[in-house]
């Protein structure tokens, strides 16, 4: 008789502890690096001063709390959000090649945001419009798929996502053509490539609650979401209310992705590749992959920030950097053959 908890559980617990340590180290490291380098001592004494109710000495206080930490924490939240959404969609659609924008959320949010730039709206309104059009796009996709009443609900969802996403993509192109080529077009291009350089403390106050609001139901329903990976019929026969769980997954994944895209622009590859890396470490069970992918995605995007700012004379857009890293990693995963989907 094998022990009641087989080795998989222990292994994934160890991995989660290690990933948590790596994430904390990444946050500390990313807080130190930059044009004005800080020492760990600076950070500790600044945090201690803040906790005591005082301000740390300038310019450390400004550099750490107004510029660097907001950016680091935003990277943490966006990385966690995209990885959680990717993991969830890959499980839901039973397809390891699915990324968070499968239902058109990135294209939809992108369209809203570039429209906001075209209309010269303030930053907060650009983010709000991107968030709203991201949710709206997936809402349209979901409603369309339900209205078509197909036997194969998953297939119709994906096809509806492709169609509506393509429309939103066309909308983005239209906005680019209409935009002023000297001021607006560079801003649009830069936004579409993904960046966290303009993040302020006030952004975190909206992003953090929304990302947490989306992650909680995914964490709570972790076991039932995993059972969905067997397909609708088997999941139903095993006692899962497929329609409810699927709606929760789509709603939560859309919420976190739309939040992430609206604040960071389109940062690709993370939601596709990180879940695979997590599966290599803890196996395919969703209840184990989700926390591992969240920690890995958060740590990865936190660490990539300083690289984006220091690797070249200009700041490299995050979307470019994640693509440069993601593509070869994905090829490596492919070369490992089918086992890499495990």
């Amino acid at each position, binding site marked *: 008789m094998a022990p*009641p908890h087989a080795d998989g559980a222990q292994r994934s617990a160890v991995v989660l502890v290690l990933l948590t340590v790596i994430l904390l180290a990444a946050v500390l490291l990313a807080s130190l690096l930059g044009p004005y380098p800080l020492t760990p001592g600076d950070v500790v004494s600044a945090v201690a001063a803040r906790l005591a109710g005082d301000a740390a000495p300038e310019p450390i206080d400004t550099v750490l709390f107004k510029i660097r930490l907001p950016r680091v924490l935003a990277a943490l939240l966006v990385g966690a959000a995209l990885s959680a959404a990717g993991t969830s969609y890959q499980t839901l659609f039973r397809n390891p090649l699915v990324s968070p924008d499968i239902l058109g959320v990135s294209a939809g949010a992108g369209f809203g945001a570039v429209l906001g730039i075209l209309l010269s709206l303030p930053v907060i309104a650009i983010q709000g419009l991107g968030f709203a059009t991201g949710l709206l796009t997936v809402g349209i996709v979901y409603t369309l798929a339900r209205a078509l009443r197909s036997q194969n609900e998953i297939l119709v969802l994906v096809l509806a996502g492709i169609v509506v996403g393509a429309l939103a993509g066309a909308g983005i192109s239209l906005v680019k053509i209409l935009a002023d080529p000297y001021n607006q077009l560079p801003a649009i291009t830069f936004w579409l490539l993904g960046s966290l350089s303009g993040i302020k403390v006030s952004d975190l106050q909206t992003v953090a609650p929304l990302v947490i609001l989306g992650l909680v139901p995914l964490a709570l329903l972790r076991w039932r979401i995993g*059972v969905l990976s067997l397909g609708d*019929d088997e999941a139903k*026969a*095993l006692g899962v*209310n497929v329609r409810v769980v699927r709606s929760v997954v789509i709603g939560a994944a859309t919420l976190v992705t739309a939040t992430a895209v609206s604040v960071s622009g389109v940062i690709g590859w993370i939601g596709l590749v990180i879940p695979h890396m997590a599966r290599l470490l803890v196996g*395919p069970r969703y209840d184990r992959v989700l926390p591992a992918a969240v920690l890995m995605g958060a740590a990865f995007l936190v660490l990539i920030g300083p690289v984006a700012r220091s690797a070249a004379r200009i700041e490299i857009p995050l979307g470019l950097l994640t693509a440069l890293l993601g593509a070869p990693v994905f090829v490596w995963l492919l070369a490992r053959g089918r086992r890499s989907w495990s």
Partner: protein
Amino acid sequence: MLQASALAIGYGRRTVAAGIDLAVRRGEVLCLLGPNGAGKTTLFKTLLGLIPPLGGSVTIDGRPIDQLTRRALAQSMAYVPQAQVMEFAYTVLDLVLMGRTAHLGPFSAPRARDHERAHAALADLGIADLASAEANRISGGQRQLCLVARALAQDAPLLVMDEPTASLDLGNRLLVLERVRALSAQGYGVVFSTHDPDQARELATRVAVIADGGLAAYGAPHETLSGPILSAVYGVEVKIERTESGRYVVAPRS
């Protein structure tokens, strides 16, 4: 316990078969036969509550299944699909643990007692040593047994098996059949679809033959699996022969 009355099955407005009456009790094996496309799979999906009946009713212990929640239904009836390769490389234990879903709270994952139940189900089927093997990397027969183990872990008194021997070699087929027989002896009610009349004759308490939009025959194996009925249903001339060992087998009439 599981009963279909005046059942009409199909998709949307298209009726595949109608006027189906059948029942399975504990300890019985109901074998379902029929030509390709006659509606075996549609009937299965209707019995499992995966698609709604177009007419009539399906009840479990007298209660219509459309009034039961998915969870309650899963606690009374377990589904054994045909084993396929999966997209994700779950271990055998992970897969069997999924059988515990209907017994977990909506926000819970399996606990120690669920692991114990899963290991016991694997041991029941003689595949305890496969627990940590990857389910995509064991033989087809072992994978089929793994799905039977998942159904056992579900602790439902009724097992609905969709052609569990269809893609198995002789050795694995005999193994699965022997386990099914043992399970019915333990008191499980089993619905079992197959393309092999001889297998049905060996195994079934009752046989239902679905063809031409309804039940072509329903009753004891020796009544339903006769030469004339099988000839009519499958459109080939066959006869039943008695072998030297006293078994009956289907043979072409030539």
